[in-house]
């Protein structure tokens, strides 16, 4: 769209242009999920790797385009900003229900344990993690990162670039530290995803949470690069806001995981 057309559109809404990325990311998604099936059933990884490569390339280029539209073309007016806010709120709501299903499965299995697992929780033979060791440290790390992202956001609103950079970097380091500890914890586990309903629900819930932490960390890293490159102003920084909401969401999910899965089932 050239400048004349832009100026003739006398409305604040963003009429998006043609883009190949919805098509390529849809293809990437179907190839990736089919690849998961091939991986899990036949232990062939190639199709999954192809799918995730297409997904990474598509999402990188799609969000690069969105960045150009907002920062360099100024297409994100107040109305567009508000609509993206609602988009993120609805997305996080859908994520809440995604995790709710795993908690449902967990409570269904644990509140009235079947005879097959010894009528007890954790099931007979399962040695759970001690919640006062690494999981407690992970809780402290994530709550601290929630505080540091808020520090970064307030610095950004107060036009304090340096403090915003420092605290956002701190948040990212805490996120990476969490992922490293989670990997260490998984390596040391006494049970696998194939060990009873405990292993299934535990790894399903904490595994998906771990994926969300990784994605949230990448989202924050993109914000750090954009902050450094002067993409944000004190009242227009939607990418940052969305990333921090997402991070808080991941933080809150961890608190529920810690309380109900790690702490409550540990005797």
């Amino acid at each position, binding site marked *: 769209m050239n400048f004349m057309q832009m*100026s*003739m559109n006398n409305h604040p809404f963003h009429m998006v242009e043609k883009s190949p990325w919805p098509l390529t990311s849809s293809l990437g998604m179907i190839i990736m999920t089919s690849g998961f099936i091939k991986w899990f059933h036949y232990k062939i990884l190639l199709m999954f790797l192809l799918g995730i490569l297409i997904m990474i390339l598509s999402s990188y*280029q799609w969000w690069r385009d969105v960045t150009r539209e907002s920062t360099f073309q100024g297409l994100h007016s107040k109305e567009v900003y508000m609509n993206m806010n609602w988009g993120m709120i609805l997305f996080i709501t859908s994520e809440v229900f995604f995790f709710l299903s795993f908690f449902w499965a967990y409570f269904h299995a644990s509140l009235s344990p079947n005879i097959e697992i010894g009528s007890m929780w954790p099931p007979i033979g399962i040695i759970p993690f001690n919640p006062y060791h690494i999981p407690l440290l992970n809780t402290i790390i994530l709550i601290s990162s929630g505080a540091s992202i808020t520090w970064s956001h307030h610095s*950004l609103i107060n036009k*304090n670039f340096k403090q915003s950079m420092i605290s956002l970097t701190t948040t990212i380091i805490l996120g990476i530290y969490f992922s490293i500890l989670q990997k260490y914890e998984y390596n040391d586990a006494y049970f696998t995803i194939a060990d009873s309903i405990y292993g299934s629900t535990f790894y399903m819930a904490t595994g998906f949470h771990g994926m969300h932490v990784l994605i949230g960390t990448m989202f924050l890293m993109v914000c750090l690069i954009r902050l450094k490159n*002067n993409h944000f102003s004190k009242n*227009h920084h939607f990418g940052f806001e969305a990333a921090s909401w997402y991070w808080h969401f991941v933080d809150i999910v961890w608190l529920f995981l810690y309380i109900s899965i790690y702490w409550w089932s540990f005797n």
Partner: protein
Amino acid sequence: MVSLCGRAVLQASRRSLIYAQARCKSYEMPDPIDHATGIEKRQLLAEAAGNDDPFNIKPIKRGPSTKDCPTLVPSAFDSRIVGCVCEDEATHVNWMWLHQGSPRRCECGHWFKLVYKAPL
């Protein structure tokens, strides 16, 4: 084909890596209006000038709405869709096209007229 694809990928990757970026030495964040561009900036400037509805998308109160004194509807185009809430207690909106030129009457009796307003 392979070399063509390779070149396309190479060019695309170069394009995204090399772009202008600037930051002043004092590490100050930019002023929001200075930082903005395009329609976003024009909207901010209009609001700074005291116009809180630069695109005329907020509802307008009807005047007498007679044939001689119709309610004026601003538009940058030849026609615009108008929604008339015919009575105070009405539970629905009556929509109609309004064209440049003579005023037009809603079925409830209120008159409207399109007036040209330059785009923002």
